[in-house]
């Protein structure tokens, strides 16, 4: 009671209170509006047939079957490449490089710059390097590799933070017990750094799955069922962009595809946080 009284008596306090709650409410309301709009317009069009059938009449009719497959393959290539490289680099930066060393500082700085580069730049780079120089052409492989380049900085930096968040006492205890650095890394530090890794993964996957600009010049526009990683395949985000901006009468299917994209994203985030809570965290506790 006393607290409420002092708040109402002090206008500055009250203003701060209103501002903080107002911003939180605004953010939540925006999200709810957005989600509500997508669900409202999209839900009636989503069905099993929609998820499995190929698009017809430039996507106005039919479904998104081949597009879902292409999107998953692009994401798969992206993760298969970026996860090992990302974790490796993060380990090197956090465990084997000192904060002050020139190499460490240079690497970190360049990663931070890369993380801020607009995706269209990655798209043009991917088109020039993977499609033309390496001769992969418009393909799922080119798209996945381009996304990997884009996701890596985020992944490395947050995994590195994950490693740095592990208390130094862990390392010292392990050394005192005579564990080798590899054993310490694999059995102690890596599981303990998983939350950081997952944050990076969720952010990276979120960025990758929503990507349009980097993919339109690399994995391309073809909406046929891909037969190999060297085929061009249209990602879900490009399909949505094309339906809403280039194909008149594509709005209904654009909404439905957006809903599928949002559900995919929520599912991936959900799995990641479930893994963090139950799957991998337990390992640290039992060690």
């Amino acid at each position, binding site marked *: 009671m006393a607290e409420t009284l002092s708040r109402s008596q002090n206008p500055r306090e009250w203003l701060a209170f209103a501002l903080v709650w107002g911003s939180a409410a605004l953010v939540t309301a925006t999200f709810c509006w957005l989600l509500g709009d997508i669900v409202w317009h999209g839900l009636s069009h989503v069905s099993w047939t929609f998820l499995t059938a*190929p698009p017809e*009449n*430039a*996507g106005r009719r039919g479904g998104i079957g081949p597009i879902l497959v292409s999107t998953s393959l692009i994401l798969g290539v992206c993760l298969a490449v970026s996860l090992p490289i990302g974790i490796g680099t993060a380990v090197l930066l956090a465990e084997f490089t000192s904060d002050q060393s020139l190499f460490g500082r240079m690497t970190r700085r360049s990663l931070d710059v890369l993380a801020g580069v607009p995706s269209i730049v990655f798209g043009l780079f991917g088109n020039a390097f993977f499609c*033309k120089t390496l001769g992969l*052409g*418009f393909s799922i492989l080119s798209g996945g590799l381009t996304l990997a380049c884009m996701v890596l900085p985020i992944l490395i930096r947050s995994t590195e933070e994950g490693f740095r968040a592990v208390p130094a006492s862990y390392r010292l205890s392990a050394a005192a017990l005579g564990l080798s650095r590899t054993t310490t890394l694999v059995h102690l530090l890596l599981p303990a750094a998983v939350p950081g890794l997952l944050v990076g993964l969720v952010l990276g996957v979120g960025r990758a799955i929503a990507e349009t600009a980097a993919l*339109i*010049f690399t994995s*391309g*526009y*073809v*909406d*046929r*069922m891909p*037969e190999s990683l060297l085929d*061009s395949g249209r990602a879900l985000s490009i399909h949505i962009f*094309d339906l*809403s*901006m*280039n*194909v*008149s*009468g*594509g709005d209904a299917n654009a909404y439905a595809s957006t809903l599928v994209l949002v559900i995919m994203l929520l599912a991936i985030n959900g799995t990641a946080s479930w893994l963090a809570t139950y799957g991998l965290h337990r390992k640290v506790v039992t060690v």
Partner: protein
Amino acid sequence: MCKYLNIFRVNPCGSLATLLILALLGIPGSVTAQTTATDQLSGKLVITGASTLAPLIAEIGKRFESLYVKVRVDVQTGGSSRGVADARQGLADIGMVSRAMKDDEKDLHAFPVARDGVGIILHKQNPVQALTDEQVVAIYTGKITNWKDVGGKDAPMTVVNKAEGRSTLEVFLHYFKIKNTDVKAQVVIGDNEQGVKTVAGNRHAIGYVSIGTAEYDESQGVPIKLLSVGGVTASTETVRNGTFPISRPLHIITRTPPVGLAKAFIDYAQSKAVHDIITQQYFVPLAD
């Protein structure tokens, strides 16, 4: 059925099976006869260029693939300029260009497949019913900035222009003889549908888009209206009979005279067999 057969690209079944499939699919006899003559066609065609044309050519490609099971038609988008560049460099077998060919593009072989009109659109509730060419020029060059000067409400205009490199922009500027650097626009957009959405969402906006797109959206209840130009109603019909003044041909281009697969595809894209697809994508088939 056909889609699953596509998976077996190295088709072990002979032409008999192909014929059987075509017969099952109910493809008319004349086409089947033509197929037997050219059913050696196989390989991949890469087509890049105008985003306006991409959905149309992709649909034509799909029907072409269903006729020739060993053929793949990969359509990529990116704009007419890219279509020209990719065809020149040999990165694409065929380029897509959604405008008339320029003088410095005479080295390329161009094949018109359809026409498209460019119409001026306003919000449906805008009381202005017609604009003269001079008024349009004055609006786009910033000499008229309020609707009351052309018989509308007292409200500032929102001029919507297309981004550099878009063919609709070039067609529009060419007809009204405006330089793009003289255009005073409040909004710059990319694709047609984006133009329609911008005008539908702003009662004081003026923009220009593909007539096929605008006509379709209008029929779907999107609050926009097409203005007549030079006294001619803007419709796919007036574009087809050639009376509507602002229109553009849609081309597919090659660097060298087309042979083999590319020639077969271009012939097919220019044939009457695809007129229904052209109409379906809100373009106007060429007169016979």
